């Protein structure tokens, strides 16, 4: 199967490979897997507690080229966004950007899931209910 140039670029020069301190209050970790192929992806974000802006993002993916490219792109996209903005990223955006063929759509789904899982983890750590907007300062509880 032919990969698009963008996939090959991300695959050869993946951005933001690595890990962040899982135990830090500011870090959210998303670990997701695709049962179809057994691929696993870990995506982490570091969120500024004042502004809710994602300042840092890292990933490590064991999977196909499309999964690596999707997660690499996802880390690029979430950086600089608030967590709420980052939740708007859809797998279809990734598909479009990387020109993924239909059989590789699940790889982009994995990346979207990873973003959501990382944000979910961060919200849980910081006492923000799932689905609740975080644009305003969070009330103490």
């Amino acid at each position, binding site marked *: 199967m032919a990969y698009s140039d963008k996939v090959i670029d991300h695959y050869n020069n993946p951005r933001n490979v690595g890990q962040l301190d899982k135990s830090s209050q500011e870090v959210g970790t998303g*670990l*997701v*897997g*695709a*049962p*179809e192929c*057994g691929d*696993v992806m*870990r995506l982490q974000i570091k969120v500024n507690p004042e502004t809710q802006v994602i300042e840092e993002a890292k990933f*490590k993916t*064991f999977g196909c080229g499309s999964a690596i490219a999707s997660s690499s792109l996802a880390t690029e996209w979430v950086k600089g966004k608030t967590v709420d903005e980052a939740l708007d990223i859809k*797998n*279809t955006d990734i*598909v479009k950007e990387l020109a993924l063929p*239909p*059989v*590789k*759509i*699940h790889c982009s*789904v*994995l990346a979207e*899931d990873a973003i959501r899982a990382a944000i979910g983890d961060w919200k849980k750590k910081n006492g923000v209910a799932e689905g609740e907007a975080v644009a305003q300062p969070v009330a103490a509880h």
Partner: protein
Amino acid sequence: MPDQETESVAASCWSCGASLGTGSPICSSCGKVQATSADADYFAVFELSRKLNIDTKALERGFYKLSRKLHPDLYAQAPVQEQQWSLDQSSLLNDAYRALKDPVRRTEYLLTLEGMKLEPEKGDAGKAARAPADLLEEVFELNMQLEEMRMNRKMGEDDPQLRQDLVNAKDQFEGQLRDNDIQIQNLWAAWDTAVDAGDPSQQDQLKTQMVASLDRRRYIRNLVRDVNETLES
């Protein structure tokens, strides 16, 4: 209500008019071969209800008995139509036997028949099922080790500790596979009970559980295979 499926949609013999269970390949009254019916499922071919604990010895006997009766050689002199039917029925019979004799394939077949989706279809946007969540940490860790192992290989190094870690991980996954198999067997028994009791809501719940168990089984088997390949390469 056992045998509900085979009784509720009865057909009749084209030759003598005797009533037949759906999917009966041969008329029990006159012995004529029947056309394959569109809603003949593999269970119906053997006149079984959709249960999961099957006496495979009896299934085998039934298979040989039917294969002899349906054998195309017997129909060499028969009208073309019946020749064709005997061919159709023989191949259906073979498919049915192959699918039912292995308990896992039987379960997969039953679940598909019952309208469940087994493997999430690739390219089905947004519907990708989740890998077993409780395994993800271990799987990720395992992948880290596999990567290191392959890296060592490339450098011509061997790390006995790492190799041992991988063997341990593999043992652990194989243990989980055994646990999962026991769980699947319990589900079979529960399913059969629910079929006998005619309890559709219980059946629905069991179907979902069986799909999850089979997905898990497939997932862990793939992991074990990956480890084996890396260890042996």
